[in-house]
């Protein structure tokens, strides 16, 4: 760049020496000459040397004129780059944090993100395409993305930076640094890595201590590869933030006509007490009067606000909570997709009906789930009892939950139907018994570990002696599972007292990582005997399967005689039917995958009402007539909707609503101080610069001040050289 670019027009004057040279050759004196022989011989000898000398003089004159004019044009470093500045080609890697925390609006109205972009652009403007400078641009919002790789078109880089916007994702600086490390293998040493971020503590200490070590290891690796790393903190001042961290359904089930309770949690991530108003809406409309004011939430604390809503229609509904008056908009909103039902239609298959006996599984399970039977139309479960023959004939699409109690006779075809039922979100609860084994069970339910059963039933252990309570139930991973209810110490104290005489040992495939064991049976007398799985879960498509390795009746245990029986069964039933609803609540960056009706071939994916793309139904591998829809990564918070066109036979498939929310981890805006960050590494590993272009600009300014002077000196030296060379040539030619 030049201070007086108009002066560059005078560069045409560089042609003057050339013109003079040419004109001089055109203006000659004519002499009639006799001694041509000697002249021609001399010409032959001298011509090459003379031409070279003339060319040298010409070059010196042209270069001198050019330098003189450049000096007068007040050159700036960006265009000159010759003196005082960086002469070598620059390889710059920009890591721009695009996580949603960067959208925090400061009191000045600025955001760290805008600041980061401007600083990156200023840095890029100091680069020179002509010198071969390149920029590699990586965004640091999850997932870290390589936007540009060694791009030497500065204008394109600038435009790409201008196009950047914050995502709804968390920071993925480790991912970004892994990308940097991978790129460094293709780059020469001396790469300048700039990390432009708000330096969130959670981003720089990802995943606790181990994560921090991994992160620091990446920094060290980059340094070892000969690159410099510059942290550019883009956040200013304190960043107090309140965020809705969760919206959950506190009720067990969302039922038409019954109040459903929701809990909205608001957390104060700031450093001082703060409060605000939470608005609650259902399906986009304000649920009249559902707003709550939170006066004060102490710094670092959270507050839970309850809302109740009574749904009047079945199907998917969207519940949304919004927090008002906060500087970070993205986490002020959170949604929950809820599937509202009338009653849970439950098909109960008793494999060993006890006739009129009250001791059968059907009796106890019906009593636990639907105690009033046909007399109560408001209970959560509506149980329909059948036997193994009934299972073969039943229309599973009318049920949300299927319970198999000691079922041993089942056709493979019905096994397929059950798989499809569960895959679409149905729940399957299996109680063991002496019939739950054998070839039919293997063929229909186990299928070498690929069927619905979480484990393969073995030979029954224990005895029928009612005085011998051989096994004791213990909880293992109950925190979030169907036995969460029993984690309460008061309830848990009752469990050891329950006598389990016989159990069905279940073998889980060693390579099956999908199975979760919530409870185990311990042999009371044989200490040291490995425990047997008692309650196991296998997710399957949109639904899941729970296997209880003992009977639902009192044949093998006295569980049904204890008050814990009812919650034991009901909690498992709720757990199973809520699976589909849970799957439709995602975090930004997640994706949805689910089976659909076989007649549906396409779906339209839209975000907040705006169509995004068409999705084709894909055949489920190794399954006939079963299809599924898979979305890509859902990278924006809000409501995503899958809508299906009517099938050829006019059947309408209800849409699927997906509530995608931001990760509340990113809402914690607490920042590391640059000094704290730098001190984590050996001296010289990291440097912190507020404005990466400032230093270069300062250097440039200083150099700019000298640059015209150097040009002038250069021109003078060239003129001097021309004079000397001219004299030397003159002497060599024997002239004056």
């Amino acid at each position, binding site marked *: 760049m030049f201070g007086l670019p108009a002066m560059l027009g005078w560069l045409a004057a560089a042609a003057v020496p050339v013109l003079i040279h040419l004109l*001089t*050759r055109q*203006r*000659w*004196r*004519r*002499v*009639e*000459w*006799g*001694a*041509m*022989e*000697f*002249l*021609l*011989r*001399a*010409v032959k*000898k*001298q011509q090459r040397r*003379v031409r070279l*000398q*003339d060319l040298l003089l010409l070059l010196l004159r042209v270069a001198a004129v050019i330098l003189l004019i450049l000096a007068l044009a007040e050159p700036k470093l960006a265009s000159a780059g010759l003196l005082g500045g960086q002469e070598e080609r620059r390889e710059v890697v920009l890591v721009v944090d695009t996580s949603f925390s960067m959208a925090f609006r400061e009191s000045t109205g600025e955001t760290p993100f805008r600041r980061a972009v401007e600083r990156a652009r200023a840095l890029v403007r100091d680069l020179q395409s002509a010198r071969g400078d390149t920029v590699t641009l990586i965004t640091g919002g999850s997932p870290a993305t390589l936007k540009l790789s060694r791009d030497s078109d500065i204008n394109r880089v600038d435009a790409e930076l201008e196009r950047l916007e914050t995502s709804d994702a968390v920071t993925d600086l480790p991912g970004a640094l892994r990308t940097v490390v991978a790129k460094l293998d293709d780059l020469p040493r001396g790469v300048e890595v700039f990390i432009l971020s708000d330096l969130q503590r959670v981003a720089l200490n990802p995943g606790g201590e181990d994560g921090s070590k991994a992160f620091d290891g990446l920094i060290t690796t980059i340094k070892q590869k000969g690159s410099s790393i510059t942290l550019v903190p883009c956040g200013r001042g304190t960043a107090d933030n309140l965020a809705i961290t969760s919206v959950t359904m506190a009720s067990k089930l969302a039922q038409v006509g019954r109040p459903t309770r929701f809990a909205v949690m608001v957390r104060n991530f700031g450093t001082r007490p703060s409060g605000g108003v939470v608005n609650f809406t259902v399906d986009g409309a304000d649920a009249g009067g559902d707003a709550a004011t939170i006066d004060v939430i102490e710094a670092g604390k959270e507050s839970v606000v309850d809302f109740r809503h009574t749904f009047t229609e079945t199907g998917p509904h969207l519940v949304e909570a919004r927090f008002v008056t906060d500087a970070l908009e993205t986490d002020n909103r959170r949604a929950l997709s809820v599937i509202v039902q009338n009653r849970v239609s439950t098909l109960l298959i008793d494999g060993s009906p006890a006739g009129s006996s009250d001791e059968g599984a059907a009796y106890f399970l019906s009593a636990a789930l639907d105690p009033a039977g046909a007399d109560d139309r408001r209970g959560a479960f509506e149980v329909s009892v059948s036997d193994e023959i009934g299972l073969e004939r039943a229309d599973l699409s009318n049920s949300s939950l299927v319970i198999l109690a000691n079922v041993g006779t089942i056709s493979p075809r019905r096994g397929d139907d059950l798989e499809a039922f569960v895959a679409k979100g149905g729940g399957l609860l299996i109680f063991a018994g002496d019939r739950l084994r054998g070839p039919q069970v293997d063929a229909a339910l186990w299928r070498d570990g690929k069927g619905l059963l979480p484990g393969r039933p073995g030979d029954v252990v224990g005895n029928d002696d009612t005085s011998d309570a051989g096994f004791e139930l213990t909880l293992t991973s109950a925190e979030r599972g169907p036995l969460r209810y029993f984690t309460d110490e008061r309830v848990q104290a009752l469990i050891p007292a329950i006598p389990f005489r016989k159990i069905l040992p279940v073998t889980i495939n060693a390579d099956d990582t999908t199975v979760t064991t919530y409870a185990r049976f311990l042999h009371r007398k044989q200490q040291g005997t490995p425990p047997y799985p008692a309650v196991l879960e296998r997710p399957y498509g949109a639904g899941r399967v729970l296997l209880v390795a003992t009977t639902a009746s009192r044949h093998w245990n006295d569980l049904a005689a204890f008050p814990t029986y009812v919650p034991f069964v009901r909690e498992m039933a709720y757990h199973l039917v809520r699976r589909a609803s849970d799957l439709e609540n995602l975090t930004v960056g997640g994706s949805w995958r689910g089976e659909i009706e076989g007649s549906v071939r396409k779906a339209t994916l839209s975000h907040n009402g705006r169509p995004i793309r068409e999705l084709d139904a894909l055949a489920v591998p190794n399954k006939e007539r079963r299809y599924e829809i898979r979305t890509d990564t859902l990278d924006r918070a809000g409501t995503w909707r899958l809508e299906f066109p009517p099938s050829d036979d006019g059947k309408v498939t209800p849409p699927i609503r997906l509530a995608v929310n931001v990760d509340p981890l990113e809402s914690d805006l607490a920042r590391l101080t640059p000094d704290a960050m730098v001190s984590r590494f050996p001296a010289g590993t990291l440097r912190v610069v507020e404005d990466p272009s400032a230093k270069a600009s300062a250097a440039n300014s200083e150099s700019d001040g000298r640059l015209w002077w150097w040009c002038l000196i250069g021109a003078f030296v060239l003129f001097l050289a021309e004079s000397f060379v001219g004299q030397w*040539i*003159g002497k*060599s*030619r*024997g*002239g*004056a």
Partner: protein
Amino acid sequence: MLSQGEVLDPEILDRVAGLELAARKVVEGFVTGRHDSPFKGSSVEFRQHREYTAGDDLRRLDWKVFAKKDRFYVREYEEETNVKTYLVVDTSRSMAYAPASGARPSKLRYAKLIAAALAKLVSDARDLVGLALWAKTDALFLPPKNGDGHVHEIASALASAQPADAATGTDLGALFEELSAKVRHRSIVVILSDLFDDRTRVLEGIARVAQRGHDAVVMHVLDPDELTFPFDRMTRFEALESGPLPVTVDARALREAYLAEMNTFTTDVRSRCLAAGVDHLLLDTSQDPGTALASYLARRLMTR
């Protein structure tokens, strides 16, 4: 065109007649010795002794006779009378060169002046003098005679001589062959030329003339421009004689190489002449012709 008066420049003749010591000796030789021609032959036959008179060349004293008779006698030779001198003037186009400023005469005019002066001097010494004007072929040939009338005829021929056409070119080799054929008796052959021709052929021709017993003198006439190449800017050199195409050069850049070539040429000519027993006199046209001629004649008399 030179007028007869210009050619027979009285001043030159005066200056030749009244020059330095050697030149004066020549003049005195004309008067007292009668046969002391400036181009006296060196390989002539003895005829008789004559008593010494003042002004005779002391080198001719016969010391044996002096020893016998105690009187001085000088030796006289048969050929001392009626020595034939041929003046050959090159009229090729290259001889027309003169500086554009007009500061000096052309080489041809300079050669004419020298030739006329020599004709007068030779004739005054009662020797025979002839003239050949030559470019590629003989344009004019006047057989050797003496007497003022003949000198007048030579002067007239010189005055009317013009440089040949550019297309005519130069063939001095042929001239020397022609001379060898026409001049049977031993004579003095004075060649006034710039010798811009095939060098080998010219020098072989001169050597051949000398080998036939003639006393050859090469008066190498060159312009100072040709000897010093004073040009210092872009110059377009066009050949006076047809053949080479014009060449435009930075003259200053070429000077060194040109002078080296010219120096090689003159040195070569001089050494080859001396090797063949031929006098070589380099005349540049800036020199006063009388002074140059007198100087040479004096030197020649001293060495014969």
